[in-house]
């Protein structure tokens, strides 16, 4: 069952005061996301993948095109009630775990905020939070009550994942969610997304420049280059038989464990 439909989505930024210049950040992209599907949107920085995520999250207004979630046009949701419903179902993790926290508040705030969406569920909030933190591999007593600058990037990313785990949305847009978590423990955090899928039918769009991560976690990979989706397919198709020159280059440049770069 398709839960998200993106059609002809375009974002043009206008920059400059006197001499206006248009920057085509996202150019007419369309795709669908099914229930329980893991998709990776792969591209380098500036390829438009973060812009796409922000538009789907209803944080950045598209220039044109439509985004429909469960049949409802996302950008025609206006009432706070509807918006809360949407963000309850569709949530995001941003790539910069430093900027994701207001430096003036303890990290507990981003977790407590979840209850603003869920409402009163009768359960003990504190113990739910503690449980979610344990799930992402943190010791609750070491992070609760701390300020963001007292935690490492990896810890902050884990807390963001914990926020999604608390919320259990239908769709998560995760922008480089594990970039600062050590490779040695990354798989543990990624398993949590799989558990959300298995237990709650959650779909995930991973936004990453890490082809390896995309290869392992996703059902489908979309390669984004200069605002367009230039290639799409199963991880095997994309890795073993890349069609677009950019995908080929990407595959050549990814360092592998059992093969050396040619010329090195």
């Amino acid at each position, binding site marked *: 069952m398709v839960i998200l439909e993106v059609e002809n989505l375009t974002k043009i930024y206008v920059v400059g005061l006197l001499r206006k210049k248009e920057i085509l950040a996202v150019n007419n992209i369309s795709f669908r996301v099914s229930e329980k599907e893991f998709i990776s949107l792969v591209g380098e920085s500036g390829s438009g993948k973060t812009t796409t995520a922000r538009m789907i999250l209803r944080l950045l207004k598209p220039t044109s095109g439509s985004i429909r979630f469960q049949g409802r046009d996302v950008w025609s949701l206006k009432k*706070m009630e509807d918006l809360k419903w949407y963000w309850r179902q569709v949530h995001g993790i941003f790539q910069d775990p430093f900027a994701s926290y207001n430096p003036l508040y303890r990290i507990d705030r981003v977790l407590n905020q979840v209850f603003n969406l869920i409402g009163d569920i009768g359960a003990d909030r504190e113990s739910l939070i503690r449980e979610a933190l344990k799930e992402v591999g943190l010791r609750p007593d070491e992070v609760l009550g701390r300020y963001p600058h007292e935690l490492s990037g990896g810890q902050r990313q884990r807390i963001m994942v914990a926020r999604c785990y608390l919320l259990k949305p239908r769709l998560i847009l995760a922008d480089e969610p594990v970039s600062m978590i050590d490779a040695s423990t990354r798989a543990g955090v990624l398993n949590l997304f799989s558990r959300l899928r298995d237990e709650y039918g959650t779909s995930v769009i991973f936004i990453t420049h890490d082809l390896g991560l995309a290869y392992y976690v996703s059902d489908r990979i979309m390669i984004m280059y200069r605002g367009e989706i230039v290639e799409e397919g199963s991880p095997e198709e994309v890795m073993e038989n890349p069609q677009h020159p950019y995908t080929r280059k990407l595959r050549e440049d990814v360092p592998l464990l059992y093969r050396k770069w040619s010329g090195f």
Partner: protein
Amino acid sequence: MIPPIVMDLIKIKKLIISLSIFLAIVLAGLIGPIVYPVNPVVMTGPIEQPPSSKYPLGTDRWGRDVLAQLLHGIRNSLSIGLTAAAISLAIGVTIGVVSGFKGGITENSLMLLTDVVYALPSILLMMLIAAYLEERNPFLVSIVIGVTSWPWVARAVRSQILSLKTREFIDMSRMAGLGDLRIMFEDLLPNMASYIFMAFVLLMSGAMIAEAGLSMIGLGVTRGISLGIILYWAQLLEAVRRALWWWFIPPGVCLVALATSLLLLSTALDEYFSPRLRGE
């Protein structure tokens, strides 16, 4: 227990110096009139007396005690500064926050208003008001200064908001279903607290100078006394040429000391806050 922020602040020399100058003058303005209970606006002695034990800072043309005038003048100048700064800050911050946060047509129209007021000198407004009002009390002067000196605050606050708005924690709050008002009060304004405080300090210093400026050209308060008014009379009656130094030097020094100590205070605070903002 002294909070660590206070300990850090104490270490900044500039801050200690500026704060002690400022507080010393404030104290003089607050307590002075009580310990030196001389009416500043009635004749208490012979005219244009140099300082003596009876009149510590001499007297003016009408035999009024200059020290008493000075102490009351500080008090009034401070209260004009405070009131005007509070008015400017309220207008400037509101317009800056709303325009930066809302964007679009709201932003454009508010910025247009800002530019119009920016181009409008307070002197002009004061001249218009002076033409209609015979009597101008300190509060009226504060309002005029207040409603004309906020544009730079609005612009600065707006640009701060524009940069804060792109920080992802705003989006995190938005996704948690927080409304605009809560985001403004929980996420945006607290992050600008230090900045707003500095703006207040600068506004206050500017307002006291502006008051003096208005008074010097005869557009200041008509009732009561202020540092500007003392200077106005001293200037009008050629105190400088006639070397009646006790009449114009003390208020001049007080005014400059007040304004510069506030400027210094704001740069000291800037030094303290900026590396933090960058570093964290």
